[in-house]
């Protein structure tokens, strides 16, 4: 697997200064400079090291259970009249793609000599994945989670605690993912020497967007290999993924960005409708600005205050999008669609009944847009099934008609 592949020739990947086109950078207060500088200087060197790669690959295989299957969804394919494959990140240990990144970052933190790990979480999947690797490595773990999210994702809160993590509620602002991220950054400012911050998405200051995308790039690496086995060629016609901050999409798109014959489809959360005032469709509602130390598209008032997004899915409830995705949107390389809460619930039920797979509400957003693509019977479509739906059962049941 090549998480350290040279992407310097690509206009869709990060450049030497930490930008994707006009997006990215590191808009950090001076208090964070030594930490971020250390990561910028060292991350490529560390992840290129053969001993790092070996340890990373071994853990992904034996601990996470990779490669995750690429499953041909026969009944779903019949319904949408195309060849639909599901990349089964839901079958990973801890139930989502998030663990790919936390394995990578905990190995990196160890090599940097860090003793304490902090993380933010929305749906709780990244928090669980972080608590898991901290238990595995015997490191202290503190997870910040919006107090609203703590209520709607109770099972994941319990899992984090059982795994030995301290869960601290973020009670400022909208009390969701954005605020949990603020609190984690503040913790890092207050603990600059011994602490590593494991960001869960392709957001934050450079090098996080690229570093997280690289750890998640195993998703598209495997898709290419698995498609060769199943269809005879590595490139599908479409790759679809949901986008909140955009980590599973970054991983699913990573090795396809420069294969322009592959259509990349990013599905954002429309919430109750893009123009309802209760939405998280950042590409449609956002303007360029700075959120969490990165220049990107974000939802904001005309005077630059970041607004509170809405999505039924806690993992997509974020008012920004990673700078890589902002650039994919601005360049037109990826098609940005959005799915409402209701469409996503329906897609979750549909996959459950057609394939016997209960998807995470986040992943259901991607599935919800199969109906909107002009698919032909010979089209090969890969949908990144980023996580499983156990954590969302209560929400699904509440909306069961």
């Amino acid at each position, binding site marked *: 697997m090549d998480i350290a592949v040279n992407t310097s020739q690509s206009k869709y990947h990060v450049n030497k200064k930490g930008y994707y086109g006009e997006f990215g950078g590191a808009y950090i*207060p*001076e*208090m964070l400079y030594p930490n971020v500088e250390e990561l910028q200087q060292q991350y490529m060197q560390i992840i290129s090291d053969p001993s790092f790669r070996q340890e990373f690959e071994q853990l992904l295989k034996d601990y996470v259970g990779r490669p995750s299957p690429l499953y041909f969804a026969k009944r779903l394919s019949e319904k949408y009249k195309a060849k639909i494959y599901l990349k089964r990140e839901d079958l990973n240990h801890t139930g989502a793609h998030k663990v790919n990144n936390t394995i990578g970052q905990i190995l990196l933190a160890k090599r940097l000599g860090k003793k304490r790990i902090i993380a933010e979480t929305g749906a709780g999947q990244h928090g669980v994945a972080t608590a898991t690797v901290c238990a595995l490595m015997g490191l202290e773990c503190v997870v910040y989670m919006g107090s609203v999210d703590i209520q709607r994702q109770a099972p994941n809160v319990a899992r984090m605690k059982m795994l030995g993590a301290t869960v601290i509620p973020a009670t400022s602002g909208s009390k969701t993912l*954005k605020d949990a991220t603020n609190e984690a950054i503040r913790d890092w*400012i207050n603990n600059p020497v011994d602490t590593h911050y494991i960001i869960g998405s392709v957001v934050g200051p450079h090098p996080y967007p690229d570093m997280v995308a690289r750890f998640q790039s195993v998703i598209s690496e495997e898709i290419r290999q698995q498609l060769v086995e199943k269809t005879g060629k590595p490139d599908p016609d479409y790759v679809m993924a949901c986008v909140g901050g955009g980590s599973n999409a970054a991983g699913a798109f990573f090795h396809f960005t420069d294969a322009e014959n592959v259509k990349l489809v990013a599905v954002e959360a429309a919430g109750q409708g893009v123009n309802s005032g209760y939405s998280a469709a950042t590409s449609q509602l956002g303007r360029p600005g700075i959120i969490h130390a990165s220049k990107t598209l*974000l939802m904001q008032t*005309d005077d630059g205050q970041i607004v509170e997004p809405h999505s039924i899915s806690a993992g997509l409830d974020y008012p920004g999008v990673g700078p890589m995705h902002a650039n994919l949107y601005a360049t037109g390389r990826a098609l940005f669609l959005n799915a409402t809460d209701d469409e996503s619930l329906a897609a979750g039920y549909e996959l459950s009944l057609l394939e016997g797979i209960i998807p995470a509400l986040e992943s259901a957003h991607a599935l919800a847009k199969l109906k909107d693509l002009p698919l032909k019977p010979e089209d090969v479509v890969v949908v990144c099934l980023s996580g499983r739906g156990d954590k969302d059962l209560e929400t699904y049941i509440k909306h069961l008609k």
Partner: protein
Amino acid sequence: MNRIDQLFQNKPKDILNVYCTAGYPSLNDTVAIVEALQQSGADMVELGMPFSDPLADGPVIQESSTRAIKNGMRISVLFEQLKGLRSKVSIPLVLMGYMNPVMQFGVENFLQKCAETGVDGLILPDLPMDEYESQYKPLFEKYGLHNIFLVTPETNEARIRRIDGVSNGFVYAVSSSSTTGKDKDMSHQEAYFQRLKAMNLRNPVLIGFGIKDSKTFREACRHSNGAIIGSAFVKAIENSANLQATVKEFVAGIKS
């Protein structure tokens, strides 16, 4: 000459710079508080432009920002409030804020308005030094505005030199690795303050974060040209029934 430079020329020691959030506790208190600070003997004022997600700030300043935004404070309103300021206030005024609202307002437009209303300097903690040098420095100079960067206990000597070279007015020395309003013990920072002092920077140094009373103020002044007080002042005026009196009492308490 910029009012900040003038101040340090006339009074190189024991500078008291007080921070408050614009539009707090009530929308139209801003100018009255600046006036009261001058009358009470503060040497400089740092006005915070409220932002929804102030990463470098602790809970006290974040809450004051949230309240100020609810009150209706925004950059355009602040410039309206500051219009007649210079007929009443002569001490230097520095605006502090985060880049996103400034970007949305338009950087040059913002700097021009600062110059028009008599602002002397800016503290934009999330503006990278490289970006300032490559994109904005000539604009700051065009409008006669000083740009003030931060150093922390973790900043290495080479970078402190670079920051000192790029900053104008003064260098803002963060007392400990923390967000604003944290109660970290300053006595462990002796070595850091000594190191800064020994470097003989071209700019004056003001120490901020964790300064909250006359003891911490004096301690900071022992090592530098003065200090910045923020969270403690914001807390003091939160429920004040008589701002004038509260400000006077607060400043007198610090200087006692």
